[in-house]
């Protein structure tokens, strides 16, 4: 796969662009936030995307998917990012769905993925237990009990955990906290006895739940991958999820940049357009460069996955590191260059700023991913 869109991909982008512009302007996201909507997004719109085949892009045809790749999914995610659509791509497709795809047995995939592709099933991934991203620092435990396991512990920041049907849960079956070995992934039904879910609203208007597990039973057939070796699946899921999330971020900061550029061309102070001030022009040029580099790096990471290259992890962390840096830069400059108006809740630029911050922190920020990139590069 090259670094530019193919003809088919260009058509897909045009479709996605008009879909989101028409059905999901930024005001929609604001309304969902302000009305404290109980779902936090639109199930109807999600199903519409299912009908268009967008939710199943990654999944095999046998389970109702389209069997395409991250190049295609990235297009949808970028367009969703441009309008801050809060639909559960990250939780259901990139995290939960990917975990089932990469680690689930065939019966499990057949049971769960078809509904996921149509938009009828929501799945989340419960892994995080502390603020800073540290995927192996897991204390929640699962112990074997006949044909099943019993899970106990607390999870935080479970994206869309308040509405998911299944919660893919990471728990320790061996080893001690911080160890990569000894982790296992379980597909747990959200209505299982012993589960308590508390919804929390995040600064970007999206939802993440705190979930506690009190001796929750889950059948051994619902383990993803090998017991104790869940981190193998988890790492692969994260690599793919951050490439997807990076594409969404790309769309969001590209939109924020374009809006800011427009503002520089229209706002007048000192009798001239503020875009005539070199102090702002150079910063705009710098942002443009950062944006173009991020686009190339994301595109390359997508091809690493789609072409089955052996440097997926390196490229994925590289993409998330770069996009996290650019998110911070463009988000911050967007507010600054809008002046006082940028500080108001009414002006949409602030919504971009907040979403970009959330995405930057989600699944590891630039510092985390540069660190990982360095390890993968052997230093």
């Amino acid at each position: 796969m090259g670094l530019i869109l193919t003809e088919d991909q260009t058509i897909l982008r045009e479709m996605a662009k008009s879909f989101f512009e028409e059905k999901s302007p930024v005001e929609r996201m604001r309304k969902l936030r302000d009305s404290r909507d109980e779902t936090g997004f639109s199930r109807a719109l999600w199903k519409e995307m299912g009908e268009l085949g967008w939710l199943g892009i990654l999944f095999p045809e046998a389970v109702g998917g389209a069997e395409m790749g991250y190049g295609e999914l990235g297009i949808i995610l970028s367009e969703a990012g441009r309008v801050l659509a809060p639909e559960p791509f990250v939780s259901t497709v990139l995290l939960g769905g990917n975990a089932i795809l990469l680690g689930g047995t065939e019966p499990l995939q057949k049971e769960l993925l078809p509904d996921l592709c149509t938009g009828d099933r929501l799945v989340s991934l419960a892994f995080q237990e502390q603020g800073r991203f540290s995927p192996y620092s897991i204390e929640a435990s699962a112990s074997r009990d006949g044909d099943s396991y019993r899970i106990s512990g607390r999870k935080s920041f479970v994206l869309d955990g308040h509405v998911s049907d299944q919660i893919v849960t990471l728990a320790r079956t061996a080893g001690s906290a911080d160890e990569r070995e000894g982790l296992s992934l379980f597909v747990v039904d959200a209505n299982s006895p012993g589960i308590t879910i508390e919804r929390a609203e995040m600064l970007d208007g999206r939802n993440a739940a705190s979930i506690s597990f009190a001796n929750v039973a889950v059948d051994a057939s619902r383990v993803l991958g090998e017991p104790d070796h869940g981190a193998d699946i988890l790492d692969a899921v994260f690599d793919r999820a951050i490439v997807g999330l990076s594409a969404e971020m790309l769309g969001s900061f590209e939109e924020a940049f374009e809006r800011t550029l427009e503002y520089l061309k229209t706002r007048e102070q000192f009798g001239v357009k503020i875009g005539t001030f070199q102090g702002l022009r150079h910063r705009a040029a710098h942002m443009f460069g950062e944006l173009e580099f991020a686009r190339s790096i994301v595109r390359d990471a997508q091809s690493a996955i789609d072409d089955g290259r052996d440097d997926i992890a390196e490229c994925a962390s590289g993409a998330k590191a770069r996009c996290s840096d650019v998110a911070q830069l463009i988000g911050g400059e967007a507010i600054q260059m809008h002046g006082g108006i940028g500080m108001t809740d009414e002006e949409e630029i602030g919504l971009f700023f907040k979403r970009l911050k959330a995405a930057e922190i989600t699944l590891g920020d630039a510092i985390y991913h540069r660190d990982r990139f360095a390890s993968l590069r052997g230093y």
Partner: protein
Amino acid sequence: MSSENLEEFQQDVRSWIDENLPADLRVGNRKDLPGGSLGKWIKAVTSKGWVTPQWPTEYGGGNLDRKQAAILMKELKAVRAPIISSFGTSMLGPTLLEFGTDEQKEEFLPAISRHEVKWCQGYSEPGAGSDLASLQTRAVKEGDEYVITGQKIWTTGADKADWIFCLVRTDPEAPKHEGITFILFPMHQEGVEVSPLTLIDGSAEFSQVFFNGARAKASHVVGPVNGGWTVAKRLLQHERTTDGGSEGGITGALKETLTDIVKREIGLKDGVLADPTLRQRLAAQELEARGLSLTMRRAGEELRSGQAGRDIGSLGKYRWANMVKNEQDLAMAAMGTQGLGWSGPGFEDTQLERTRAWLTTRADSIWGGTNEVQMNVIAKRVLKIPE
């Protein structure tokens, strides 16, 4: 060309390189390459026309199409062959191909592709740097010649050059962009005086050049008289997209990669660089280099597919400059006081070389349009923010 033929071409290139490139040259564009081997290599490359692979055969080129030329370059870089390039091949040649008369092409291009005639660039003057169009060097017509008076500065390689491509003012009354002419003349003549300048890295590859009645043939004006600004700008575009191996102040290949030097100087503890801050900065630097090369590749793909990409020439130049400068900054940080050596014992060659490179690369954000000027161009032409 079909992909089969391209594969065959690639095979041919490989075996030709195997036969012609000695082991002691497979170290990249270093400044200390062994002269004997290098001379032979230059002869071999020029006899194929591969210094200017895409030029027509009649001008000494290799007559390759774009894809073949790309393969050739890739294969040469893969074995770290020295890339033969000059002001003639990368800047003047392409400009002459576009603006030159048939006579000019016949007279100058073959000697450039054979690497026989050295050119220098007479653009900048003490009073005309970024604001190049304010240049004052005068040319006055006398019969079928021009007589030239004035001064150029920062002229790279002027002390070794045979010819100069020069911007001169032919109409002092016209608005500043409209009285400039692009002209070629020999350096070895009365009325041309070259005075080398020593730079902060200790090198003296730049000169001030004084013209006091130097002469140029009127038939050596490229493009229209008083219409040289268009030609000059076009040449600058070629200059900006040149990478690696041009004479324009670019460091050649160094003995040790940045990652290796940082690892060696700092050391690994449990497989991880002992200094976590440098480790972060090194990772950022590697990603910056990737970002740049992927973006250049993407721009190439956009161009070939006819997709309207944005012009990233200016972006590439200034980001490249920042990248190579930052690379040396990191090497300096890793070396500590070992990076402060100038000569004498106690310093490795690799260290001394990095220190000089740190100094040399400061120029990369200045020549060919400073970073600030490139950012002005991006804001105005790419982002279209009105001034």
